[in-house]
Structure formats: structure tokens, C-alpha cells
């Protein structure tokens, strides 16, 4: 038996109490009132259907879909003795045997040009890592577009993220897409926005102060195949040139988000229907195509470890990347 300290137990009970008080109001909101509120203030709730086969085939005829995803593996111990390996993949649905991989690495031991080692450590490091990962994803996407000239690009995650983390190369990709008339969308599994929560507070529907995220507010609110097309001007994303919708794309009560360029807003509904068609009804809500790309890009930690062990000099490996804690046996 494990011996659990009484204090630990108390802390967890307290956590439960805090969360349930905070969300008590939200969770007790009447579903219909809530939906009406969204309809009026956020965007219309519409039910969409899957596309038929012929309709989907059109995508293939126009160049298919490019799925883009990235992965990172970390090896080593605490700052600064670790290395992160990034891999980005762009995979065409038509030419699945010609994947485009991009790789990069980051270690605080070797600050590159442009990185300021004197910057605040944790903050700076975090953003460098994010930038690196986003950059290789965008790079892969760019090359994929040039090679395959697809009909559409599915990015894994919010488009706004690329805008923040690597805006230069992102703008290049964005312009390339607009030029070639390629629809580019971002599919967000865990939405982190708080559009609806803010509006609720503004309208005084929530007495309690606090930050509420769309993820928990929308949980279970939509029916399968229902989407909320967010009106222009409601979110700050629109200032940056993006449109967003939320959709329940599977039987799972969670909701996914889809970002699209404002200039391509007209395709948003078609894209939503395409994604619905590509998503297993009993799944998590993510199109199978993206899951396949994700699986291809992911590298098992074991393999990274093996690669480092084979290609790094033993000295270097031991000196920098094998933390003492890994040698614990107990």
C-alpha cells in the first residue's frame, strides 16, 4: 500500500472545491439559454452534413490535401543540459510515398545567431523552442506547396500560433497560398481561446469574475455535426486576418476549432464539411488524415535515444545529455 500524506489529500480536495465553485455557475447554465446567447452574440449554430464521395474527389482532382504536423523529442536533464530534436512533416494525400521532412534541433548550450543568451532564461528559451518547431512546420508546408500544389493545406494547430511564433516565414507561406489560391486551415484539437467566456462576462451573465475558456464552455453543448461560425469582429483573431469556427466533429462531446485566412473565409463551411467527412464518427474529432501525418512525424523516444547514442561521441553524450537522475536505480 502507498502511504498518502494527509496534507496531499487535503490539497486535492481543496482543488476540487475551488474548481467546482468557479464553474458552478457555468455548468448550471441552461443549455437552451446558452445556445441562444451564442446564436445572438457569437455566431450562428448550423448543422452540417458530410460531403459525398464525388464532392470529396474534387479535392483530389485539384491536387489533394497536404497534411502538416511537427514533433519534438527532448533528451537530457534540466536547463541547459538538454537537446530538443524537431521534425516537421508535410504529407500529400495523393503522393503519400513522397513525404517532406524538415528537422532542426535546439540546445541552450549553443545559442545561435539572433538568440540572446542574456535574455531571461526560461521565457526566452520557451519562445525559441516554439519558434523552431513552428518554423520547420511552416518550412515543410512551403516546400510541400511548391512540390505538390495541393488544393488545401491542413496544419495541425491554430494558424495564429505561426503568426506569433514565426511571423516572417509564416507571411511567406500565407502569401504563397493566397497567390496560388490554396486553402490553408489550422485544425485545433484543444482550443485555448476564451471568446465566449469573455462575452458572457461582458453581458453580465456570469456574476463571478474569472477567465473562462471556450473548451469547457462548449463541452457537450453542440450536437454531432453542429458548428459555430464566429462572426467577424467578435474575436481579436479577425484583426490579424483569421476567421474561426468551432465544430463538434465526432460523437465525443469535445469541440474542435478551425482557423482559416480571412481572405479564404468563403471556403470555411466547405472545409468544415470536408473535415467532418474525414473524421471517424466515434473518434476524438480529429481528421484521420492528420492522425496519420502525426503518426508518421512522431519519433519514439527510444529511437532518438538510439540515434544520439550512435551518432554523438560518447563523451559528449555523457557530458551534456545524460542527467545523473537517469542513473537512479531505485
Amino acid at each position: 500500500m502507498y502511504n498518502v500524506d494527509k496534507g496531499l489529500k487535503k490539497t486535492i480536495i481543496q482543488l476540487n472545491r475551488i474548481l467546482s465553485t468557479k464553474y458552478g455557475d457555468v455548468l448550471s447554465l441552461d443549455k437552451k439559454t446558452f445556445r441562444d446567447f451564442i446564436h445572438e452574440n457569437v455566431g450562428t449554430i448550423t448543422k452540417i452534413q458530410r460531403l459525398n464521395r464525388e464532392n470529396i474527389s474534387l479535392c483530389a482532382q485539384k491536387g489533394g490535401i497536404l497534411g502538416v504536423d511537427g514533433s519534438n523529442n527532448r533528451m537530457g536533464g534540466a536547463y541547459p543540459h538538454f537537446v530538443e530534436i524537431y521534425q516537421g512533416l508535410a504529407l500529400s494525400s495523393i503522393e503519400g510515398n513522397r513525404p517532406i521532412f524538415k528537422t532542426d534541433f535546439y540546445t541552450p548550450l549553443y545559442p545561435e545567431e539572433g538568440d540572446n543568451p542574456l535574455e531571461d532564461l526560461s521565457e526566452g528559451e520557451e519562445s525559441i523552442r516554439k519558434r523552431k518547431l513552428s518554423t520547420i512546420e511552416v518550412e515543410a508546408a512551403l516546400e510541400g506547396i511548391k512540390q505538390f500544389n495541393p488544393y488545401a493545406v491542413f496544419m495541425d494547430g491554430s494558424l495564429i500560433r505561426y503568426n506569433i511564433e514565426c511571423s516572417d516565414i509564416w507571411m511567406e507561406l500565407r502569401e504563397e497560398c493566397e497567390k496560388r489560391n490554396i486553402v490553408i486551415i489550422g485544425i485545433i484539437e484543444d482550443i485555448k481561446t476564451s471568446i465566449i467566456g469573455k462575452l458572457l462576462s461582458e453581458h453580465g451573465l456570469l456574476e463571478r469574475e474569472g477567465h473562462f475558456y471556450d473548451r469547457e464552455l462548449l463541452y457537450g453543448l453542440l450536437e454531432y455535426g453542429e458548428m459555430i461560425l464566429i462572426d467577424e469582429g467578435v474575436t481579436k483573431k479577425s484583426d490579424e486576418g483569421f476567421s474561426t469556427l468551432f465544430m463538434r466533429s465526432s460523437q465525443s462531446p469535445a469541440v474542435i476549432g478551425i482557423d482559416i485566412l480571412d481572405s479564404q473565409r468563403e471556403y470555411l463551411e466547405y472545409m468544415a464539411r470536408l473535415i467532418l467527412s474525414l473524421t471517424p464518427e466515434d473518434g476524438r474529432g480529429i481528421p484521420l488524415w492528420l492522425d496519420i501525418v502525426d503518426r508518421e512525424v512522431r519519433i519514439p523516444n527510444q529511437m532518438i535515444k538510439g540515434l544520439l547514442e550512435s551518432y554523438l561521441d560518447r563523451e559528449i553524450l555523457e557530458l551534456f545529455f545524460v542527467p545523473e537522475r537517469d542513473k537512479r536505480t531505485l
Partner: protein
Amino acid sequence: MKVVGITTQQEVYVGSKDKNFRINEFLIIEDPHQGDLMGEVVEAKTYNKYIPLSIHGDLADSSVIESLKAIGYNIEEDTIYIAKITLLNEALYPIETGSDVRPPAFHEVKDLMVQSDADEGLVLGVIKNTDQMAGDMDEQYKNLLYTFEEGKLLDQKDIPYIFNIRDMHQYPHIGVFGGSGSGKSFGLRVILEELMKLNIPTIVLDPHFEMDFSETESYMDKGKINMYKDRFKCMQVGFHIGVRFEDLSTQDIKNLLDASGKLTDSMSNVVDILFKRKDSYNSFLNRLNMLVEAQEEGSLDRINARIAGAASDLEREGWQKRKEIYLNYDNICPYSSVRGIIWRLHRLNNEGIFSKDIRPIEEGLHMGKLIVIQGSTRILQVFSTYLLNNLYGKRRGYKDAQYKHTAAEYFPPFIIVMDEAHNFAPKGYDSPSKSILKEISQEGRKYGSFLILATQRPTLLDETITAQLNTKFIFRTVRASDIQTIKEETDITEEESRRLPYLRTGDVFISQASIGRTIFSRIRAAITTSPHTENPFDELKSRVEEDEGKFLELIEDKLPINGDDLINVIKEIEEDTGITYSFEFFKEKLDYLVDKGYIQKEKTPFFDVYK
């Protein structure tokens, strides 16, 4: 195809992107250090990493897979095929992972697959899943047979399974195991056809009256001549063949009587006392009768009175004899037991057993024929004891004389085939035929007498005998206890034994000591057919239709029949055809025809009219 994963000296996994594997397929592993190694597929699997078996996670439903196809991505192309392969011979080192794998050519597997020339061995079927190798097979192995699958006769595509009958000299005796409907009887029939092809003297004990080879199977080309017609002979115990009473030993006669009706200890004792070696049927029966007659007189005084009052010398002499027997045996042979024996003896005699002998069988064997002996299981049990003792004795006498360099009459080697062998050599208790079967199973090899024993219950077959069966044909078996026995008695693997309940009819594992491994095979289509393959329900139906037809014909020209006129119609029919119907029965039959819609019945105020 490549070797993948962790390997051992005995087993490897092989993966392929485009070739699906089949169980029992042979593959050659090209190990860079150890050379080519032969292996057999024991497990075959497919896997698609994008379509995992997950109960809670994303299950790619068919509509999504279709949609993916529509955007140009075929998820099914990512399916990979995996086979577990067991090496035929253990390697010195574990196989190198990454070695190439290829299907073998015929000449590479010839020694493993083909044991004998087609015209010298028993061509029993095909080795399953060998069609890839059969392409460059020698001409002599092609087009030897047909297989029968899903109602159709198919040409031979695989390598033939040819049993080398000469191997029986070193690895004697064959067992044929399988539940009912598994193809066991068919397999036995094919074995017998092949034995006839080679003119091997064979005795078949057939309690089911099914081993007749004169009819050609309906699916076979009618033009094909049935070569087996003249190579077998059916003989029924008591009708064509029997036992010579003078040759019987006390034990034989007790066995025979026991088959006719269960013998009590006391009866058995009476036989011991009253039966004398070289007795004829009549002398033995006479002795029994006289004792009974004397016992019926009741006392010595009365017998003496009979002698005194005899009308003739003959009668006196007769009673003298009875007195003698009475004095000798009365106190040890109870009257009721003696009567019992007489009754049993009569019964056997009425069946004709004592009026014939086994001469026709011996003649048939000398001519290399297949002799089918038919009779009820009880009679066959006893008769076979007598017969096998006799024939085996003759063959042994000849061989022993040869060893001793003395002269003896020639007697050919022969094969004994039995269906339902567990009745003849049961485990756990004695049966008359068991001891001779045991003896042949243990020593028959020396003398050229071999057994082919078929049973659906290998568990019930005597273990000493099972242990001597060097080749075993194992058809579908469902009973756990039988599978257990098979596992213990043969070299089939755990994987193979798990497949036993699911084998298709006619598919068989052949576990052969002479080649040291198990072959998965399909028995060829039999050329001849058993006389009772007609479905009894079909028979019933056609019979009923025939009856209806006949009756309809009889009454057709008598229609319409008035209900008050039935008697006259019955009379007419009787006059015309001699068939008599009772009034009630006739009316019932008419109503039956109405019921079936052949004729109509109209009701009038006075009577019914049939038309």
C-alpha cells in the same frame, strides 16, 4: 519479404508489404551467413497501423476510409503481412534479421514434399498451399488427381501428396482419426482405391456395408472406366464366408458363442468341459443334445429304465451313450447352461457361419485383391479374430519357414483395414479381436502384415496399438479429449492442434514418422462412391412422390368419383390391378390428394365428389 524482429534458431517472423501469407506455406530464408534455410509458415497475420483494433479510441469507419480514398490516400495500401515461420531444421545460429525471404522452386522442395513416384505410391491428395512451387514440377506429378471443393471438381494445382507404401516396412501401420463428417470415410476410401491400384492384398472389415467400389461417383466423368470394379470383392459373413468348425479352438468357439449371445461363467465352463479339439459342428451339438436329453429324464433310474425298455438296438445304444455322458458331466454342467449353449449354437448355424469357410478370402488375397468383409459389428469382431489369427498365422508360418530354410506354402503379405477400430481393440477392457491386433501391431512389420485403423475416438483405442501407428491421418476433431490424445500421440504442434476443430471436410494433417513432420494436405476426390450417400430425407421425399404418382395414375381414369360410389371404384381397381384398398384407407388417400392439390373435392348435399 524480409526477416523482421527478434529471431531464434528455430523461429523467425517475416514481414511483407504486398504478399499475404498462408499457413503451411514453405519459404526459403536466405541467411547471408548460413545459406538458404527452409521454413514453414505456422501463423499468418496482417496489420495496418492506421486501422488499429481499439475499443475506446478512433475507429476508422468505412465512410472515413472511403473519404480518404477520395482525397487520394488509400489507407489499405499500408497493410503489412506478417508470418511466423518455423524452420524445418534448427539453424546453428539465430537467423540474421533482415535476411531476404523467397518462395522455393519445386526442385528445392522435391525431397521434402514428394516421397515416391506417382505409380509406385499411394496418390492420396495434394499438399495444401504449394501451388506456387507446383509450376515447375516434373510432368509425372502433374494432373494426377482432382480435388473436390465447394461442390465442384477442381484440377490439381498443388504438389501431390504421395504416400510411399514401401516406407511401411520400417514405419508400419496407419491411423485415420476424425469425427463424423470430417472426411474420414472418404479418406479411407481413397486409401483403398490406391491400394487396389497397386494390387496390394488387403482385407477390409466393413461394419457399415459401405466399402463398395463398383459405383463411380456422380461428379466423375462417366466415360472414365472404373478400374476398381474387378479388383475388390465384397463378402458377407455367413453368406459367402464363414468359419470351419473343425479349426476352432475352445477360445474361438467361446468368442463366437458370446457374439451370438452373452455367455455366463457357467456356460463358458460347460464349453470348456464339453468341447473337444477337432469336434465338428455335429459332433459337438450331438454331445450337447444327448446330455440335455439325459438331464431331461431327471435321474439315473429313469435312464436305466429307458435302456431296458428300448424298442431297438439302436435306441438302446443311444441311451447307453446318453447315460455315459450323463454320468460324466451332469454334476458339473447345469442343465440351463447347456440349453443356453445349444440355443446360441443354433443361432450361429442359422446365420450360416459354420457352413462356409475362409477359402475365398485366401484366394482373393493370393490374387492381390481387396477383400471387403461385411457383417454386423458383433459378428465381425468374432469373425475377424478367427480370420486374422488364421491369415496372420499362415503368413508367419511362411516367413518363419523361410528364416529356418524349410519349405512352407506361400502366403502373401497383406494389409488389414478397419473402420471403427475402437470397437475391435478398445482401451481398458478385453475384446476377442484385441489380442491379435496387438500382436500384429507389434510384430506385423517383421512378417509384412500391416494395419490401417480408422476411428472417430482415438482416445478409446488401445494405447499399445495407437503407439505403433507410425503414420496418422488426422481429420477434423472437435472433442477435447481426442485432441489431447492426438497431441500426445503425434508430432503436431500446439498451433496445429488448435486448428483441428476448424478443418474443412477432407483437409487433413498427416503426421508421418518416416519424414519426421506433419504435412497439411487435402484428400483427393474419390473416384468411387459409397452405396449410401443418398440423403435419407431425399429418399423419403422421392418415395412419397412415387406413391402419390402411382395412386394418381390408378384413379385418374375413374374421375370424377362420387363419394357414395367408392366401394365400386375400389372393386374396379382390384379387378384391374389386384391392389386392394380398404374403404377408409382409400378415402384417406383421396383426401390426401385433395390436400396436395392434385384433385378437387366438391361438396354436394348427398355426398362429396372428387374430380
